[in-house]
C-alpha cells in the first residue's frame, strides 16, 4: 500500500494541476482541522490552496455527501476511498451528479482509524474494500491480495437472535437516540429535501423525541436506503451516542444482494435495485 504521506503529496499535486488548468472549479478533499488527528472535509477553488490539503488515517469522511449541493454541471474533482467511490457511483445512478462533471481522485487504502476510539475501521463497520470501484486518477497504487473478511460477518450475532430478541435489541439501541440527525446528515445517500422527518403536513413522526418516533425515523431511513446504502459506516461514526446503525444497513444490503444479485454503487451502468424490475428478480419477499 502506498504510504499515506505519499497519497497526500499526490493529492496536493493533482488538485493543484486540476485547478490551474481549469479542468475543475472545485476540489473536494481533506484539510487540516484543529490538530493533525482531526482533519476536516474541505473544498478548495484556488490552486494555491492545494498546499493545505492533507491525507491521513483519520480522513474517514465520505465526501460524496457534499456533491449534490453543487449546481448542476459544476466541474468537481473529489477524493474517494473505496466506499466513497461507491457512493459517487450510486449518486450517478440516481442522476444526482453526472460522471462527465466529475474527476475522481481514487485512494486505495486500508487501515483507516476511527478518531473517537483510535480503532482500525474494518469489515465490522464498513464494506471493507481497499480500492475505489471507479477512478480517473489514482493517488496510490492499487492494493492486491487484501483479505479483510466479509462485511456481513458482523451480522452473525444479530442473525442468531430470535425475532423478539432482535426487536428488544433495536428498541434499546434507539432509546439513546437524541434525534440530532447526524446520521442522515452525514449520509451521502440522504439528500431528500425535505426529509420526511422535516415535513409538517403530514407529520410522519412525533417532533418530540419519543421512542415511537425514533423507530419511525430510523426504520424508514433504513428502508429508504435499501439497495442504496454503500456501507461506508459514516452514519454510525457520526452518531454522538454510538448507535450501531451500520448493523441494520448491512442486514438490508445483504438481503438486497441475495434478492437482486447487485450491490449498491458498484457499477455506473446498474440501476438502483429498488427502481429496477427484471423478470429474473426473486419473488422471495412476496411469499
Amino acid at each position, binding site marked *: 500500500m502506498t504510504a499515506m504521506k505519499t497519497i497526500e503529496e499526490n493529492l496536493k499535486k493533482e488538485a493543484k494541476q486540476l485547478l490551474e488548468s481549469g479542468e475543475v472549479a472545485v476540489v473536494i478533499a481533506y484539510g487540516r*482541522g*484543529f*490538530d493533525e*488527528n*482531526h*482533519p*476536516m*472535509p*474541505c*473544498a478548495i477553488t484556488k490552486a494555491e490552496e492545494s498546499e493545505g490539503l492533507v491525507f491521513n488515517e483519520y480522513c474517514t*469522511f465520505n465526501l460524496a*455527501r457534499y456533491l449534490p449541493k453543487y449546481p448542476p454541471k459544476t466541474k468537481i474533482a473529489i477524493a474517494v476511498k473505496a466506499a466513497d467511490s461507491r457512493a459517487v457511483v450510486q449518486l450517478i445512478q440516481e442522476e444526482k451528479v453526472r460522471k462527465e462533471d466529475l474527476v475522481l481522485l481514487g485512494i486505495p487504502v486500508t487501515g483507516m482509524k476511527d*478518531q*473517537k*476510539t483510535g480503532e482500525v475501521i474494518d469489515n465490522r463497520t464498513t464494506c471493507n474494500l481497499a480500492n475505489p470501484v471507479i477512478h480517473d486518477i489514482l493517488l496510490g497504487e492499487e492494493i492486491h491480495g487484501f483479505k479483510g473478511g466479509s462485511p456481513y460477518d458482523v451480522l452473525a450475532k444479530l442473525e442468531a437472535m430470535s425475532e423478539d430478541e432482535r426487536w428488544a435489541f433495536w428498541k434499546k439501541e434507539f432509546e*439513546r437516540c*437524541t*434525534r*440530532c*440527525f*447526524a446520521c*442522515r*446528515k*452525514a449520509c451521502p445517500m440522504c439528500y431528500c429535501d*425535505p426529509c420526511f422527518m*422535516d415535513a*409538517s403536513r403530514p407529520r410522519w413522526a*412525533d*417532533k*418530540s*423525541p*419519543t421512542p415511537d418516533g425514533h423507530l419511525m425515523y430510523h426504520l424508514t431511513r433504513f428502508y429508504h436506503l435499501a439497495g442504496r446504502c454503500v456501507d461506508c459506516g*459514516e452514519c454510525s*461514526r*457520526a452518531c*454522538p*451516542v*454510538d448507535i450501531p446503525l451500520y448493523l441494520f444497513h448491512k442486514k438490508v444490503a445483504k438481503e438486497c444482494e441475495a434478492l437482486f444479485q447487485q450491490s449498491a454503487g458498484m457499477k455506473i451502468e446498474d440501476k438502483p435495485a429498488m427502481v429496477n424490475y427484471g423478470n429474473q428478480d426473486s419473488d422471495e419477499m412476496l411469499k
Partner: protein
Amino acid sequence: MLKKIALEKVGDLVSALMGKGPLYAPVRGEKAVDFQEIRNPADVTLDFYNTAMSPKSVFFPQSEDMIRYKLGKEAMETEPVPIDTKPSVILGVRPCDAKSFEIMDRHFLGAGVIDPYWKDKREKTTVIGYAFDPSVPPDPADFYNTLGIGAFDTAGSDIFMIRADKELLLKGITEKGDRLLKDLAILEAGSKADEKVFADLSKKGGEVKTRFMDLKDDAVARKLVDVFGNKEFWEKVTAACISCGACTFVCPTCYCFDIADETLFRDGVRKRFWDACMFTDFTLEASGHNPRPRTFQRYRQKVCHKYSYHVDKYGCISCVGCGRCTRSCPVNIDIFSVVQSAMKQ
C-alpha cells in the same frame, strides 16, 4: 465543611445519596460515560474524563410534558402537568459543566420571565462537582481555560469533590451543600491535614492547561458583530458543516427548545423538547419563508449567539469550553478555532 470517605467505600456513599432522593451520576455505557438516574450503586463510575452528553438534561430534560389535554366535541379538557421534583443529587459534575448551570440560570431565571420547570429542579437539586484529574492530560478539544474555568473550580457546585490518594475529599461550597454533607453519616470529618491536602490539590488544578486564547467578553462580542457580514469568512469556516444538531445537543449551555402538541386519538400532550439552530426547519416560517436557509447562516447564528448576543443580553459568553461540540462533530468543526480566526479578521 470538609468531609472524606475512603475510595473503596464510594459504593456506600452512592447508596447513602440514593437514600436522599433520585441520584444522577456517571454510568459507563458500551462506549461512553453518561449521567443517568442510578438504580444500582455499582453502576456509578468516577473513572471517566467527561461524559459524552452534558448534564443539562437533569434540569432541562430533552423532552418535558407541560399540559395534558383531551379533545372533546365542544370543549377541551386541559390539565397542567404538576411541577414537583423530588429533592435530588447530581454527583460527579466536572467544573466546566457546573459553571454551565450558572450560565443557564441567567437565561431561565434572570431574564424577567422565570422558567418554573428549570427553577424547581435547580432549587431541589444539590450539585456535587468533581475536579478533573490533574494526572490525566486534558482532551485536545477542551478549552475551558479560555472561558476562565480551571480544572478545580468550584463555581456552580454545592459540594466539591477531589480525589486524593486513597480517599475522596468533599468540601461544602454552599449552604445547601453543607446541609447535605452534615446529613451523610457515612462520611468522616476532614482533619486539618486533609484541609491542607485539599488546598494543595486545588493549587495543582491551575497546572492543568487546556487550549487557551485571551478572550475578553466585550471584545469578542463586538468583533463578531463586525465579522457578521463577512459571508466569505463564514462560508469558509462552515464549508464542512453538515448542519446536524449533534453540537447543540451535547452542549451544556444550548437551551433552545420547541413546543408541540402531540395528539394520539383524542389524548394529547403539549410538550417542550430540545431544538437546534442548526436544523433547517428551526427558523422555517409558516409562509414557507426561511430567513436562514444556508448552513453558514445557521452556524454563524450559533457562534454569534454564544459569543456575542449572549454577552450583550446576559453579560457573559454562553460557552464553558467543555469541548463536547468539537468532539462530537462528525466533521471536526471546532468552535475554538472559528472564534480564534474571527478575532483575527
